[in-house]
């Protein structure tokens, strides 16, 4: 087995074992997504474990982002996109017409591939969610939330003297951590990250990976990544997508060392994608 991905098996297996008993947070059953005529996801069944990092990998265009966007119904904002099948979170159907997407998205936060801070101050960026959801009763509480979120995102030390500066004035890596701080400020239960490190240098990437490791204690994290090393480093479970189909899902260490499917093996050994 000439896997190109080195999995530090001892720690990976330990981490996987640590989360093995965690309950399932999100269940996707028979999910199909169409963009107009295009059938982008086919019959995806996937369980996402609570307080663990699940990595979605696969070649470009295979539907990773599409699946991720199903989980907080961001596909609703795309004209012509149709989702069928069933996705439940804590046994509640998130596509139930009764369910309020606003509340769903407050529970399922998202960090995008390209950092997208609002053109507001750093403080206001983080305060955005708490403000719209009325999470703080007064200014002191709001400040408290902002500071803790920035600290948890590992950005506080760098920006504490200039919280009034525009969020767009930060560097790319800082912007991405600001977006993470913004997402965790509303204390979501799940955080979705779509290639959060693709625009970042190795140091900023390492910071964010470290952060994910910490966040995993309290949050359920789903991350899309093109870097198999990253998937191996941060995730406990990995799902491999190919051409809109979920090919294989399992414990990260196993996927990278003993994949069951031929396509998975080809992908992780770099034969395609």
């Amino acid at each position, binding site marked *: 087995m000439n896997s190109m991905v080195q999995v530090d098996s001892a720690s990976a297996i330990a981490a996987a074992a640590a989360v093995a008993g965690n309950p399932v947070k999100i269940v996707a059953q028979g999910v199909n997504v169409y963009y107009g005529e295009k059938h982008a996801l086919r019959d995806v069944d996937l369980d996402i474990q609570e307080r663990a990092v699940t990595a979605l990998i696969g070649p470009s265009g295979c539907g990773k982002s599409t699946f991720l966007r199903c989980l*907080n119904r*961001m596909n609703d*904002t795309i*004209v012509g996109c149709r989702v069928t099948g069933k996705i439940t979170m804590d046994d509640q159907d998130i596509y139930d017409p009764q369910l309020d*997407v*606003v*509340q*769903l*998205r*407050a529970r399922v*936060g*998202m960090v*995008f591939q*390209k950092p*997208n*801070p*609002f*053109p*507001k101050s750093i403080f206001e960026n983080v305060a*955005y*969610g708490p403000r*719209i*959801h009325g999470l703080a009763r007064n200014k002191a509480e709001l400040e408290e939330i902002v500071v803790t979120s920035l600290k948890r995102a590992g950005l506080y030390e760098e920006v504490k003297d200039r919280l009034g500066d525009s969020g*767009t004035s930060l560097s790319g890596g800082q912007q991405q951590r600001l*977006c993470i701080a*913004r*997402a965790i400020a*509303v204390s979501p239960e799940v955080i979705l990250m779509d290639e959060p490190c693709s625009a970042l240098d190795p140091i900023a990437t390492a910071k964010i990976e470290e952060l994910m490791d910490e966040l995993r204690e309290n949050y359920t994290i789903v991350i899309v990544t093109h870097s198999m090393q990253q998937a191996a480093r941060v995730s406990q479970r990995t799902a491999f997508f190919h051409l809109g189909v979920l090919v294989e899902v399992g414990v990260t260490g196993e996927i990278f060392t003993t994949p069951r499917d031929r396509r998975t093996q080809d992908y992780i050994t770099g034969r395609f994608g």
Partner: protein
Amino acid sequence: MSLIYFTGLAALAVAGFLLGRNRAAVANRTETFHSRPSYHGAYVVVSVLLPMLLVFAVGVPVAHHLVETQALTVFDPSVLDDELRRGAALRDIVAVATGRHTGDATPALVRAAETWSSLRAWTDNLILAGGGIVGLLGAAYGLRAISATFRARNRVERVVKVVLFGCASVAVLTTVGIVFSVLLETVHFFQKVSPLDFLFGLEWSPQTAIRADQVGSSGAFGIAPLVVGTLLITTIAMLVAGPIGLFAAIYLAEYASPRVRAVAKPLLEILAGIPTVVLGFFAALSLAPWLRELGQSLGLNVASESALAAGLVMGMMIIPFVSSLSDDVINAVPQSLRDGSYGMGATKSETIKRVVLPAAFSGIVSAMMLAISRAVGETMIVVMAAGLAANLSFNPLDAVTTFTVQIKTILVGDQEFDSAKTLSAFALGFVLFFFTLTLNVIAMQIVKRYREQYD
């Protein structure tokens, strides 16, 4: 003559281009050229065009002047010094020479016309020949320059740059010229009327002296009523167009389905295409009487021409400016910001209010400023709907007047050019110009301060 000249010029240019390109292309096979063949062709074109245009531009006026002077000398040398008679005599001479003269021509006139014709034919031929020669020389020069190391591309690029610079300068120089001439007349005006009276006087009645012996006293030139009138109407117009235009833009950009948008946006823009005269008589004949009746039923005294009517209709006129420009800037806000906001669980209206509009703020401000400039400069609607009475009144139900209306009123009809009344139009124009300039500068500052850089 001109027709032949430019046909020849075009023919030479085309031939020069083809020859040059061809020669370079052939030589290019054996040697590596610095510039591609078509640049060598273009260089030949330039070296044909420049001298030929120069000959025409200098030769024609000089030749005409000489011919005219000669013909007039034959006719009657005394007219040469008299501008008016010179013009009249010249018209007659040309008319006779081209066979369009009606009635009898005096022998002197006939002789002058003959001189004119023969000289004119002679100079025309001279210019044609001269142009042809410099054109050919130019082509030869351009063709000779063709060689492997000759940097035709750089030369041609430089010519292109100069031509573009020339076009830009025309626009700038025209503006400068207009401003300068207005400024000059304004200074003139201030020699007759004190600037202090003009800027701070409370009464505007340029309708000149009441008694003939009132020399030098030609009415009052205080612009306060015009300033107030202009501001009043503009404010009303912006109160209408600002919110409606902005909300329409938000609807179009954020809520409307693509199908609705495809229909609604052009329809809104048609509103901008309605001639202001039409809007003006709508205001004067439909809206103003209606407002008056409405006012009466409420016990208010509404003038039959009112600032309100003019302001409302002007507001309608500028809605498309506000909405179309705002729509563009709102659309330019990156989708990723909206996604970020939706991803936080924000609703559509929260996203618009807290993310999209702040991000589009600077663009919206400049749209508003542009709309204000339009409103301030608008004449027709105000003439028809707000009247001419220079009342110093802040009451929107009164008749008021504006800068543009007064300028138009002053300059329509007979007037002496040097009177304070006429000159005051220039002073008004200058103030108006200064006002819009200030608006634009403010707008630019705001835009600069709040502009967000997106990549």
